[in-house]
């Protein structure tokens, strides 16, 4: 099962949604809304853990951050979320987001995909 749009490719494998972002340098609130609406429309009301793979994102607006990490919106139907840290920028972005917009679901960052998936399987 695979969902593709201008921002990402999302595949459902072993009951975990794996998201690979395209090269987007900036995410605005408008982008964030499209990302979330598309995901919910495609996977409907089913709940899954989510893995966000390597993403070359330079910045995310504050309003977009608020939206993406709110359980009513961006985190809706997500049981747990894991991120793969690829660069120093990822590290800063995620540290900041986890501090300021702390997701109210299980959340972690990983250096490699296998460790992330092993952790997410706990929430299937």
């Amino acid at each position, binding site marked *: 099962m695979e969902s593709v749009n201008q921002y990402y490719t999302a595949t459902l494998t072993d009951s975990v949604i794996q998201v690979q972002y395209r090269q987007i340098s900036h995410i605005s609130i408008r982008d964030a809304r499209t990302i979330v609406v598309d995901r919910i429309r495609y996977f409907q009301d089913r709940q899954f853990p989510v893995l966000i793979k390597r993403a070359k994102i*330079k*910045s995310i607006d504050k309003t977009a951050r608020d939206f993406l990490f709110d359980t009513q919106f961006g985190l809706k139907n997500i049981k747990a979320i894991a991120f793969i840290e690829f660069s*120093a920028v990822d590290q*800063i972005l995620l540290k*900041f987001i986890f501090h300021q917009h702390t997701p109210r679901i299980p959340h972690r960052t990983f250096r490699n995909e296998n460790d992330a998936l092993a952790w997410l399987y706990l929430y299937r």
Partner: protein
Amino acid sequence: MSVPRDQRIDAINHVLLEIAEGNFQHLAPVSDNFDEIDAIASGINMLSEELRDTVISRNYLNSVLRGIVDMLIIFDKNFKMKQVNHKVCELLEQSESYFVNQPINILFDGRKARFIKELKENVRNNEHLYNIETSFKMPRSGKLPVALSLSTLRINRAINGYVLIAKYLKQILLTSYALLQRNEELKSLIYRVSHDLKGPLASMLGLFQVIEQTEIDHQDLQYYVSLIKQSADKLNTTLTGLLEIGITDRTKIDVQKFDIAQVISDIIDSFANYPNRDQVKVTLEADSPVMFTSSEKLFRSILQNLVENGIKYYNPRNDTSFLRISAKNARGGIDLVVKDNGEGMDKTVLDRAFDMFFRGNQSSAGSGLGLFIVKTNVEKLGGDLKVKSKPKEGTEVRIYLPSLDKF
């Protein structure tokens, strides 16, 4: 081509300095390298956004706090003050920094430890406490009587802080007293207006009845018409006075620069045909011009009423009756003296002379509004007024009006 490292660091430094100045519009550039410098730039950009929101919220909160007329204090969950509004600083005569991060106890006398403990317990148990009368400690000496209302602030049901509103009791008492006074004035106004309008009206109606029901010759008719005219004049005087009060009360002060010597001369001239004007020698002592910035309209009204009183209440037993007006620039405004040797007033009359509708005696032809209008206008122009008077010796009115050039 990638940007040299030094230039990227310079750009970040520039953004940091802008943030320090409170300017959150600039963003640090993030390159495609995704290296440590980009990471720092990214972090600074997010921090800048968060700070901007915090500053906007704080500025908004401060503007709201400034608008609150009561004292308002926000505490954290440990009853340490996190924010106080301007009123707290004003009434307790301390700067904001004196209060911030201090415990609630510094607001009270040292002997109130038990009261504070109970206050904390009660608000935790009851969420809200209303109108608890107590007093704050003044920094140097004395107490500030207050009525406290205290409520909890909660986030996700857990107590995160407290908000305290303190009303200054003396201010409440003064406001209530002022309100009572205004009510009394209003009652008096209604009574006097009814009385003053009804008297001449009843008299006119009676005269019309006489004319209707009696066969009268032309000479008598003329006599009755003259009586009706007297009543109509009285009605007119009362209504004109009331209208003037209404206009003074409602209109915005329209400030302009004018020559008061010229205005006073005009007013004196306008009384040329006033009854008994020729019995009173009216003089003006003033440099010409005496330029002054104020409301010419209200100033005219003040002088008009004082000159009218000076002529109307002249003392016919005097060989020479006078009304002397002097005006000079002084103390950033003008000093105005209006002195006559007319009938004067005794202390009982003087005490009430500026009350609305007060007349010195029942036979007085005035509306009882003249001096009330003078007082109201002087107050409206930010001035002050003093009166000395003795029966059969005369009256002296001293008025100071500030210049309103910075109005």
